[in-house]
C-alpha cells in the first residue's frame, strides 16, 4: 500500500514531464508530405489505440484469472482495465474521425481499424453496463464478457480487415523517418506511463471499496 501511494505520483510526474516535452518534439518533427499538419494527431491517436488494446488484454487476462481462481483482486483489475478501455477508446474514436475529416474528407470510414476499435469499445461498454445493471453477482458474468471480449479482439480485427481496409497500415510506424519516430515513441511511452498511473489509481479506488465492504460486514457482525 505504502509503495503504491508513492508509485502513482512518481509515475504521474514522469508522464507529466514527458507530456510537457512532447509538443515541442512533435513541433520539431518534419511535416508528413501528403497529410501535413493533421498528421500530428497521429502522435496521440496511435498511442491511445495501443493503450486501449493493451487494456483490453489486461481486462481479459484478469477476467480469466477471476473465473479460474475467484480472487477479488483479479476482479478489481478487470473492472479497472475495462473502464480504461472505454476511456482510451473514446479518445481513439474521437481523434480518429477528426483526422479522417481532413485526410479522407469524411468523418467516418468503415475501415478495418476504425470499425474494429468501435466494436471493441462497444464490447467493453457492454461490460460496464452489465456490471452496472445486472445486480448482485454480476462480477462473474462480467468476467465471462471480459474473456470473450479479449478473445474477440483478433477476430474482429481480422474479419473487419478482410472486409475492407483503407486505413494506413501498421507498418507506417516502421517506415517513419527518425525525426518522426522519436516523438512517436516518446508519446507512446508517456501514454503507457499515464495508463499505469491511472490503472493503479483506479485499483486504489477498488481497494477502498473492498475495505468499505469489509467494514460493512464487520458492522453486521
Amino acid at each position, binding site marked *: 500500500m505504502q509503495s503504491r501511494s508513492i508509485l502513482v505520483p512518481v509515475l504521474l510526474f514522469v508522464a507529466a514531464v514527458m507530456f510537457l516535452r512532447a509538443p515541442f518534439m512533435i513541433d520539431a518533427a518534419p511535416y508528413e508530405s501528403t497529410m501535413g499538419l493533421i498528421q500530428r494527431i497521429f502522435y496521440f491517436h496511435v498511442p491511445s489505440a495501443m493503450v486501449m488494446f493493451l487494456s483490453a488484454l489486461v481486462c481479459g487476462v484478469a477476467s480469466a484469472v477471476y*473465473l479460474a481462481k475467484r480472487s477479488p483482486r483479479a476482479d478489481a483489475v478487470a473492472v479497472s482495465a475495462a473502464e480504461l478501455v472505454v476511456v482510451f477508446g473514446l479518445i481513439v474514436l474521437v481523434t480518429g474521425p477528426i483526422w479522417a475529416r481532413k485526410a479522407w474528407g469524411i468523418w467516418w470510414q468503415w475501415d478495418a481499424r476504425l470499425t474494429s476499435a468501435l*466494436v471493441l469499445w462497444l464490447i467493453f461498454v457492454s461490460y460496464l453496463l452489465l456490471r452496472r445493471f*445486472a445486480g448482485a453477482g454480476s462480477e462473474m458474468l462480467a468476467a*465471462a464478457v471480459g*474473456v470473450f471480449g479479449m*478473445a*474477440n479482439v483478433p477476430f474482429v480485427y481480422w*474479419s473487419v480487415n478482410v472486409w475492407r481496409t483503407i486505413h494506413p497500415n501498421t507498418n507506417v510506424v516502421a517506415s517513419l523517418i527518425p525525426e518522426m519516430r522519436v516523438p512517436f515513441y516518446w508519446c507512446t511511452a508517456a501514454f503507457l506511463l499515464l495508463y499505469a498511473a491511472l490503472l493503479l489509481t483506479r485499483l486504489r479506488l477498488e481497494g477502498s471499496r473492498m475495505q468499505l465492504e469489509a467494514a460493512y460486514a464487520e458492522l453486521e457482525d
Partner: protein
Amino acid sequence: MGFLNTVWTIARKDLVIEARSRELAYTTLFFSVSVVLVFSFSFVVEGVALTDAAAGILWVSIAFAGTLALGRTFERERQSDTLKALLLSPVERPAIYIGKLVGVLLLMLVVEAVVTPVVGLLFQAPLDRAPLLLVGLLVTGTLGFAGVGTLFAAMLIRAQSRDVLLPVLLYPITVPLVIAGVRGTAAIFAAEPNLAVAQAWLSMLVFFDAVFLTLALWVFGPVMGE
C-alpha cells in the same frame, strides 16, 4: 449416464415442450419475416434491391430472431426455476450447456429453413447456385451465434434487466460471425459469384465456432456456479 445421453435428454425435453406449444417456432418465424419486410423498405430503392441487400437482411433477421428465441427459451427455464433443477442434478455442467445449445440451434435452423427461401424469393437471390456452401455458412454462423447466446442467456437468467442486457452483450461479441456470414452469403448471391471467397469465409466461421464454443464450455461452469 453418458455425456451424449444427457445432452440428448435435455435437448429432447426442450423439443417436446416446443413441439407441444409451437409458441417459439411460430412467433420467431413471424418475427423474422417481419424483420425482412421492414428492412426491405430501406434496402429496396425504386423496386430494385441494393447490392448484397439479400445477404445482409437474411443475417440480420437471423440475429434478431435468434435473440428472441434465446430470451424466450431461457424464460421457460426461469418460470419454475428449472434451470436450477438442472444444475442440481448430478450431470456435468458442459452437458447442460450443450443440451440447451442443441435445442436453440435446432429451433433457429427451422426458422432459417423458412426465412432463407422467403429472402430468396423476395430478392431474387440464387439459392440454388451453391446450396451446400450456403447451408454450411448458415449452420456454422448459427452455431456460433447460438453458442455465445446460450452462454449469455443462461448466465443472465438471474440478472436484473436481462431482456435488454442479452442483445447488448450479444451483438458486439458476435460481430465477427455476422460479418463472415454476410460476406460469405453475399459472395454466393453476387451477380458475379465468387465461391472461393465464400469458402474462405466458411472456414473462418468454423474457426470462430471452435474458439467460441471452447471458451463457452470453459466459462459455463464457473459462471453458473453461483
